[in-house]
C-alpha cells in the first residue's frame, strides 16, 4: 500500500474540482434554492406538517441526501471514466499501485466533493428554514457513509460504462427515480398499502429515513435498520469492486 500514491491521485482528482470550483458549487446551491422556493415556500405553505415537522424543515434532509447521492454517483463515475476515456489510465495501470489504492483515491475524492456540496446545501437551507439537528454526530455519520457508498457505486458505473451515454444512463434511470421515490419530499407512510410495501424495497428510503431521524428524532423505519441498510449497500459495492479488481474487468485486458 502506497500512501503517497493514494494522496497523489486524490489531490489530482480534487484539483480538477477546484479548477472549476464555481461551477461545481453554484449549480447545486441554485437548484437547492429552487427546491426550497417551489416546495418550501410555494407548495409548502399549503402543507401544515409532515410527521409533526414543518414541511420546509422536513424536506431538508431529503434534499441534502438527493444532492449528495447524485453528486457522489456522478463524481465517482466521471472520475474514473474520464482517464479511461482519455487513455490516461495507462499511468495508473503501469504504476506500482493496486486497485485498492486507486479506489480509495478516486472514490475518496468523489466522496469529499459530495460531502462539501452536501454541507453547503445544508448551510444554504438555514437561510430558508430554522434547523435544529438532534443528533449531529449521527447526521454526520449518515452523510459520510452515503457519500462513500454512492461514490463506490459511481466508481463501478465509471468502470462499466463504455461511452458517455452509459455513464448517464444509470444515474438517470436508476438513481434519480429511487431518490425521488425514496421519500425525499414526503413521508412514505403517506403512500397507500401496496406502494408503501414496494417503497420498503427501495434502499434510499432507509438512508433518507435515518438521516431525517438524526435531524428530528422521528423515523419511518427503525434507525438501526437504516444503518444496517447503508452498511449492507457499502459492503455490496466493495464486493463488486473487489471482483472487478480480481478479474481486471473492463480495465486490464
Amino acid at each position, binding site marked *: 500500500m*502506497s500512501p*503517497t*500514491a493514494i*494522496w*497523489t*491521485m486524490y489531490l*489530482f482528482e480534487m*484539483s*480538477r474540482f477546484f*479548477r472549476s470550483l464555481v461551477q461545481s458549487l453554484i449549480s447545486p446551491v441554485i437548484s437547492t434554492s429552487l427546491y426550497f422556493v417551489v416546495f418550501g415556500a410555494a407548495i409548502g405553505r399549503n402543507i401544515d406538517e409532515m410527521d409533526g415537522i414543518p414541511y420546509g424543515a422536513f424536506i431538508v434532509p431529503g434534499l441534502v441526501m438527493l444532492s449528495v447521492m447524485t453528486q457522489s454517483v456522478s463524481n465517482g463515475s466521471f472520475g474514473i471514466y*474520464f*482517464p479511461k476515456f*482519455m*487513455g*490516461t489510465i*495507462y*499511468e*495508473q*495501470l*503501469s*504504476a*506500482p*499501485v493496486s486497485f485498492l489504492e486507486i479506489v480509495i483515491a478516486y472514490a475518496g475524492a468523489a466522496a469529499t466533493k459530495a460531502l462539501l456540496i452536501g454541507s453547503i446545501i445544508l448551510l444554504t437551507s438555514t437561510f430558508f428554514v430554522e434547523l435544529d439537528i438532534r443528533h449531529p454526530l449521527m447526521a454526520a455519520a449518515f452523510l459520510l457513509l452515503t457519500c462513500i457508498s454512492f461514490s463506490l457505486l459511481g466508481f463501478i458505473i465509471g468502470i462499466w460504462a463504455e461511452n458517455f451515454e452509459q455513464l448517464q444512463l444509470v444515474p438517470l434511470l436508476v438513481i434519480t427515480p429511487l431518490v425521488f421515490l425514496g421519500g425525499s419530499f414526503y413521508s412514505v407512510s403517506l403512500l397507500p398499502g401496496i406502494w408503501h410495501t414496494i417503497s420498503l424495497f427501495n434502499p434510499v428510503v432507509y438512508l433518507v429515513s435515518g438521516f431525517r431521524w438524526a435531524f428530528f428524532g422521528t423515523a419511518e423505519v427503525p434507525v438501526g435498520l437504516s444503518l444496517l441498510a447503508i452498511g449492507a449497500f457499502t459492503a455490496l459495492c466493495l464486493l463488486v469492486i473487489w471482483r472487478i479488481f480480481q478479474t*481486471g474487468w473492463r480495465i*486490464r*485486458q
Partner: protein
Amino acid sequence: MPIVSVQDVKKTYASGFEALKGVSLDIEEGEILALLGPNGAGKTTLISSICGITRPSSGRILVGGHDVVSDYRNARRLIGLVPQELNLEPFAPVGPAVAFSRGLFGMRRDPDKVEQVLRQLSLWEKRKSRMRELSGGMKRRVLIAKALAHEPRVLFLDEPTAGVDVELRRDMWNVVAELKKQGVTIILTTHYIEEAEAIADRIGVINGGRILLVEDKASLMARMGRKNLSVHLREPVAAVPASLGDYGLELCNGGRTLIYSYDTKSDGTGITRLLSDLQEAGLSMRDLETRQSSLEDIFVDLVKEQA
C-alpha cells in the same frame, strides 16, 4: 542478469486474436533495443504485457529480477512507459502532471527533480501551460517527462516519433542518447527503420506475434546486408553485353551505369570476376561505388520470408 527477461509469453485477447505467440527476449541493462515490426505485429502488446497494462495469457516476465505479476510493485517501480497515443488530460497543467507521475510511483515530492526533468525535455517554459495548448511534439515530450519523473531504470518508448516532424525526431534521438549515457535501458518500438538504424544497439524484428530475430545492429546489417556495386562507364552502352548476362546487371543512368547486386555473406562476391569480364567486354570504367543495403531492405526481406 538481463534487466528485462521475457519468457515464452503468449497473449490471446478476449476476441480470440492471438497477439503474441510465444515471445522470449532478454534485454541487457544499459542497451537501446529497437523493436521493429509492421502494424499489428505485437509490439504494443509486448510492451503492455511487460508494463502491466495487459495480462499475458501464459509465460513469465521479469524486470530487475521481479516477476511483473506476482511482484508487480517492485517490477513496475523500475519501469517508465511512454505510450504511443498522446494520452494526456487536456486541462491539467504540465508541471503538476509531471509531479503527479512521480507521486503515483510512491516517490517523495521533489520539485528539483521535476524541474530537472522538465528542463531536460525543454518543457520548463511550458510548465504552467495546459496540455491542450501544446503542440503534438510538446505533448510527446510531456509523456516522456512523466515517464522519467520517477527515475526509472528501464524506459519503454512506444513509437516515440510517430507523427513527429524531422527536427523533433532528431531532438528525441538526442534525448534518448542522453538517457543512455545516464545508464537507462531503453526499449523503443518503431516502424521507421532509419530510427532503429540511427539509435539502437540491438534490433529485434517482430511480426505476427513472434520475434523473428534479435541481433546486434552492426552484425545484423553486415550479416544480412546486400551490397550494390555501381560501375560508372566512360561511354554509355545501349544494352548489357551478352557476355555479362550471368551477373544480372541492371543498366541505368542512360546506359552509363551498371549496377551489380551481391551478397556480402556468400564466400565469393563475384566482384573480381565481374571486373575482369567487364574489361574483356571492352568497357572502360570511370568510377566504382558500393552501397550497403539499409535495414529497411533486410526488414522487408525478413517479413516477406515469413509470409
